[in-house]
């Protein structure tokens, strides 16, 4: 294995490709392949929160499942704590998996309604091998305590809890093996804003107390901005822009990132469109990733800046030549602000 491993890099995703075979349209037509992930690379260090944003269908959940080794990539590698996940034997994978847990979006569907909360939370403990009942129940109590629930809650069932509390239960289940990384796939999207804030605060506290790292997936840009220090914007299975969160949001380069940011409604009534002039909303067509052809920039069909070149060759992720992007040379842990576009915003402003 020829890798440059630094002591803090926890998860390395290298050029991961994940394809699905689509059902045949006709009996004798050849089955079509669909690339849900097309060469995704990123690194998450210990104790840091890395955000993934993008519209539904861009491949966020596929990335989560692949990182969790629930699905194997067709090519590329997922390396967790120095081990390539899909090369491990089942037994060793189980051990490594205890350091890697997941929280799902749906607090209703992700908890088995027939199991008591105690059983649900204890479930990942099987990854750690044999354990006394006493130790088990101690760990359940501790996990409940960590997320602000009471030990008595362990005998209750999921339906007795609100959405926010269910998500706490899901977090307790993820925490119980004391993982180094939690993959959180839209962890608060199903909750009210007021409750979202409660769960997000809990996640931040746990990060600080336990030195957790998060791969934090969300379509909500303001949440990602608040929760993460690094971020990658995905479109049609590829990363189209990445960088330090603050820098990327303040200085978005890719037309897609800019469209996402512009679409977030603000609590400012002066932004109310003068009714007939709702044409001010950029008319980006709906995403329709399925129909994409292999070559060229996937965003071309929606991009207001598209030119011929964009349709022929996919633009590579490249460093932004802005002053703001320098300064990380002597710190290889840091992420550089990169964009995959022939016409990044900085270039437009210059000309």
């Amino acid at each position, binding site marked *: 294995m020829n890798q440059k491993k630094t002591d803090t890099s926890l998860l390395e995703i290298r050029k991961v490709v994940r394809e699905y075979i689509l059902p045949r349209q006709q009996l004798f037509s050849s089955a079509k392949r669909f690339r849900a992930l097309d060469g995704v690379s990123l690194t998450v260090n210990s104790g840091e929160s890395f955000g993934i944003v993008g519209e539904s269908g861009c491949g966020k959940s596929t990335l989560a499942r692949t990182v969790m080794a629930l699905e194997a990539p067709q090519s590329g590698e997922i390396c967790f704590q120095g081990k390539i996940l899909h090369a491990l034997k089942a037994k060793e994978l189980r051990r490594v998996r205890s350091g890697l847990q997941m929280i799902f979006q749906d607090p209703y569907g992700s908890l088995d309604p027939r199991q008591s909360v105690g059983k649900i939370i204890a479930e990942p403990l099987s990854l750690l091998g044999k354990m006394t009942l006493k130790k088990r129940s101690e760990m359940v109590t501790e996990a409940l305590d960590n997320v602000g629930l009471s030990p008595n809650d362990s005998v209750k069932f999921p339906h007795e809890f609100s959405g926010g509390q269910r998500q706490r239960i899901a977090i307790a289940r993820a925490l119980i093996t004391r993982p180094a990384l939690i993959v959180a796939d839209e962890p608060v999207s199903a909750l009210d804003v*007021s409750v979202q*804030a409660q769960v997000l605060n809990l996640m931040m506290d746990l990060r600080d107390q336990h030195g957790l790292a998060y791969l934090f997936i969300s379509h*909500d840009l303001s949440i990602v901005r608040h929760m993460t220090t690094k971020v990658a914007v995905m479109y049609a299975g590829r990363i189209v822009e990445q960088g330090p969160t603050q820098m990327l949001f303040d200085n978005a380069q890719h037309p897609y990132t800019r469209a996402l940011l512009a679409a977030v*409604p603000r609590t400012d009534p*002066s*932004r109310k469109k003068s009714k007939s002039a709702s044409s001010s909303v950029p008319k980006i067509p709906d995403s329709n990733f399925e129909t994409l052809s292999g070559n060229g920039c996937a965003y071309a069909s929606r991009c207001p800046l598209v030119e011929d070149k964009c349709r022929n060759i996919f633009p590579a992720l490249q460093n932004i030549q802005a002053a703001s992007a320098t300064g990380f040379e002597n710190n290889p842990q840091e992420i550089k602000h990169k964009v995959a576009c022939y016409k990044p915003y900085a270039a437009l402003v210059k000309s």
Partner: protein
Amino acid sequence: MNIFKTCKTFTSSHSILNLLTVNNLTISTEHKSGSINILDNLNFNLERGKSLGVVGESGCGKSMMAIAIMGLLPDNMTASGEVLFGSNLLSLPEKELCQIRGNKISMVFQEPMSALNPVLPIGFQVAESLRLHKNLSRHQAQQQASKVLDRVGLPSQQYSHSLYPHQLSGGQRQRVVIAIAMACSPELIIADEPTTALDVTIQAQILALIAELVFEENMSLILITHDLGVVAENTDEMLVMYAGRIVERGPTKNVFENLSHPYTRGLFASITDSEIASAEQGLQSEYSQTNRLSTIPGRVPEFWERSKGCSFADRCPRVQAQCSSQVPEEIQLGTAHSTACFFHY
């Protein structure tokens, strides 16, 4: 250009400004301990051509209000008060209500799939609505449906109108639902979380589409959402609901300029996006510390758990003894802006 006018038959019997007037609307249901109110004495007016935003966390009664106006309450609930839309809809027989629903008042729901029939082509579904209410022939209805689908951004050159719902994306399906809602040129559209299930980019387009259609047709709109940003950018007036009551209301601009109810301020402060804005309004101090997100502690009570006095009391940072014994009445703060709190800001 104005295609909806072509099938408009309804002539309003009341020429006053208000299209919809809700008086003392109360909805109750039997619960263990007897009859309990889910909605408590709602009052509001909606002028023709105006848009009204309704915000609050889930469980506050927003959908219940919409369903009551549409006359779609489940059998185990009773409504009292008045919903004046021409006549009092609450006392109208079902047969006459059918003439109003989908025709003069339409609804757009959060989940487009629940409003669409999965086994019928989209063009057919829009046409059915027209045939039902406008006595059009099959052919006329189909032609009209095609125009309506064009209008909502699904032109037949690009999107065959014989496609089925599952062949469309979430945003496109919501466009079909809007087409069905708009087909008969209703006077009032009630949109209940129409974009909650959609991506932000698509949300912006769908809201823009609704705003544009409502404006061009001079329709009125009730836009229900839990997103204050959506209310700010899309409505003229707003109501804030909590636990079945209206706790703050007014012209959207005025309410945002002076958030006066502790609940409204809590909602506003919870939004990650508004950090800068809330710092300006001095909201950080009472609801949060440093870089933590502001939260409203606790949760919305179920309707059978509501306390005697102000139902926000157990979550409120300003609560005092009086709050738990007495229900605060609405207090007028300025032109049309009012708040139901003893110790408002």
